[in-house]
């Protein structure tokens, strides 16, 4: 008897760790049953009008993040069964996550390179344009508001060829402004970013290889910045460094720059006019853009006196074939919301809605989404 109890005691305590782990198993098993139970309810509910039940994970561009968060909040208020997590992380992360199939959709400000298409596990990818907005050239120079900068000067600043704010080139574009002797701190993105892609595309198109080769870094979601620069993660990260650093300059989305109270430069556009970043300027740029069949387009360096030269487009990308029916329905409803009622939310958080023609095309494309 003695040995038996002893064995029991020993075995009991020895397997303490296993029991403990098993306990946690039980606990979580309980909690898993709750959502599971509610999702088994879902088919019953679908007999009623459409009760959407799904959790959509998403990541990607930080440029439209403020707008997406606003749209998600409004959409999920109306559809309480849907949870959407938009994580940001940069366009590059969004595209990679979609390729790996770990998100339901991704935000991106740039298109997928042909070479990368093969890596997309879920097959064909659809582009849904969502909003348009200016990329600002924001700076921190107390007392100097409304700075005017040409693409040439911007290119030289970001390539560290102009390193002082009172440089002759900047002074020449800002007559009557007293510029301080402050050193320039260039701030760019540390992550793979559509904002970087569009900003460098602006410089490539205006003063790049074919236009005097002043800008030599090319255009991509990451480029080879000089080593004596600073980088922040996401648009907010760049905005944070610009805001806290005297003499800093960086490229930031209009919404974060406005909310963060940053100073924004007026940029010389293709027509030779200096234009301050504004939603009207972005809309003007997008209106004339040539739209490809897959709804990709570029509003960068657009023609027209009123067009802001660094107006960036942005897309939500998703697989054409949605294998999970619940998620597919939720995604479709969300995209529909963004392309219709959600468009009116855009200007409340400093984004410009899509040109009407483009929104119509996007809605038509939404119908091609295959669910199940």
């Amino acid at each position, binding site marked *: 008897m003695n040995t038996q109890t002893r064995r029991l005691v020993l075995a009991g305590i020895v397997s303490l760790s296993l029991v403990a782990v098993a306990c946690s198993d039980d606990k979580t098993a309980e909690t898993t049953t709750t959502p599971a139970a509610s999702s088994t309810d879902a088919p019953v509910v679908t007999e009623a009008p459409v009760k959407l039940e799904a959790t959509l994970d998403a990541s990607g561009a930080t440029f439209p993040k403020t707008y997406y968060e606003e749209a998600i909040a409004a959409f999920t208020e109306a559809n309480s069964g849907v949870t959407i997590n938009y994580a940001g*992380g940069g366009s590059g992360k969004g595209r*990679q996550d979609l390729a790996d199939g770990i998100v339901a959709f991704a935000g991106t400000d740039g298109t997928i390179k042909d070479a990368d298409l093969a*890596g997309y596990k879920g097959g064909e990818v659809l582009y849904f344009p969502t909003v348009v907005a200016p990329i600002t050239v924001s700076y921190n120079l107390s007392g100097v508001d409304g700075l005017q900068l040409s693409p040439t000067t911007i290119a030289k600043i970001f390539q560290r060829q102009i390193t002082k704010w009172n440089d002759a080139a900047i002074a020449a574009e800002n007559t009557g402004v007293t510029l301080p002797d402050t050193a320039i701190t260039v701030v760019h993105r540390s*992550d793979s970013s559509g904002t970087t892609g569009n900003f460098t595309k602006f410089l490539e198109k205006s003063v790049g290889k074919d236009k005097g080769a002043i800008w030599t870094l090319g255009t991509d979601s990451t480029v080879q910045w000089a080593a004596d620069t600073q980088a922040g993660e996401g648009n907010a990260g760049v905005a944070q460094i610009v805001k806290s*650093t005297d003499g800093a300059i960086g490229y930031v989305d209009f919404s974060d720059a406005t909310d963060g109270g940053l100073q924004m430069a007026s940029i010389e556009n293709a027509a030779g006019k200096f234009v301050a970043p504004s939603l009207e300027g972005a809309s003007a740029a997008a209106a004339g853009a040539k739209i490809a069949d897959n709804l990709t387009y570029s509003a960068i360096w657009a023609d027209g006196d009123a067009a802001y030269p660094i107006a960036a487009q942005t897309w939500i990308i998703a697989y054409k074939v949605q294998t999970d029916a619940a998620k597919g329905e939720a995604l479709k409803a969300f995209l529909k919301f963004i392309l219709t009622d959600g468009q009116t939310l855009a200007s409340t958080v400093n984004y410009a809605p899509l040109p009407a023609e483009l929104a119509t095309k996007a809605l038509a494309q939404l119908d091609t989404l295959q669910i199940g």
Partner: protein
Amino acid sequence: MTAINTSSPSPDTSSVTGNDIATLERGLHASGGSADRAFKSTAYLAGGLVLLVLGLVTYTMVNRSTDAWSHMGLDFFTSRTWNPPEQVYGILSYIFGTVYTACIALVISVPLSLGIALFITQVAPRWLQRTMTYVIDLLAVVPSVVFGLWGVLVLSVHIKGFYTWMSSTFDGVPVLGSVFGPNPQGRSFFTAGIILAVMITPIIVSLSREVIQTTPQNEKEAALALGATRWEMIRGAVLPHSKGGLVGAVMLGLGRAMGETIAVALVIGSATGRIGLNVFAGGNSMPAVITAEWGEADVLKKSALIAMAVTLFVMTILVNVIATTVVNRSMKKTRGI
């Protein structure tokens, strides 16, 4: 946990009576007991777990990084060009940043730590010893991400004035002029170094304390009896005695500093390709790059980032192995085993 360690463990006694116990145990084992055997084998398995985990870490990580090695060859270490769109992955500048920030941290932390450890062990009265130990250990409890938050939102903003003053003071002075170089940034090697110094100080202090406390009391008393002042006693008896162990303690701090991720990622400035003496310039370190670029990495880039982690792993393990060996040896010597 270090505070408890110091209550003089006595391996001497255990080794003396160890034989007797072993004899007793052998007698008991003879009588069997399956539960007893089960317990024993569970304990052995748990012990083996350390080997298993370390082995698996080494194997899987090296395995996953082979793509990057074969793609880049030796350039992986010798090139400072990190250009993911072109699939060029050279990590030289990140190795530099990792080592440089860790060195800055040591330069700041070592004198402070040794001073504190000596004060606690040789000067402070008993009540103050305990208070000081608690206070220093508090530093170790603050999570690194909290240091990072403070570093990025407070320190890096307010310290720029000091950097500018240093930079202009040392302008034109040989060597120091390029170390405290021009165009200082709030987020820089130096800011990262400061944060790291604060983080490794409790580690170095607690180990140094242990090492210093192994100095035999009679040697210290002999020095004092010969008329040495307190400092002369420290220099003549304590320091020579614990030199080896102190080197080990400092190296453990170095290893910790090289591996620190989050705090550094937030304050180092994230500039690519930076190799230079200027401590006030922004740069980047290996763990910070892995953190920032992991999410967007495709297959080859993930492999390159893992290869970078392997490099970091090997560097920190080497430092740690040397440090542990040095500490063990000096402890053994001083305990007279």
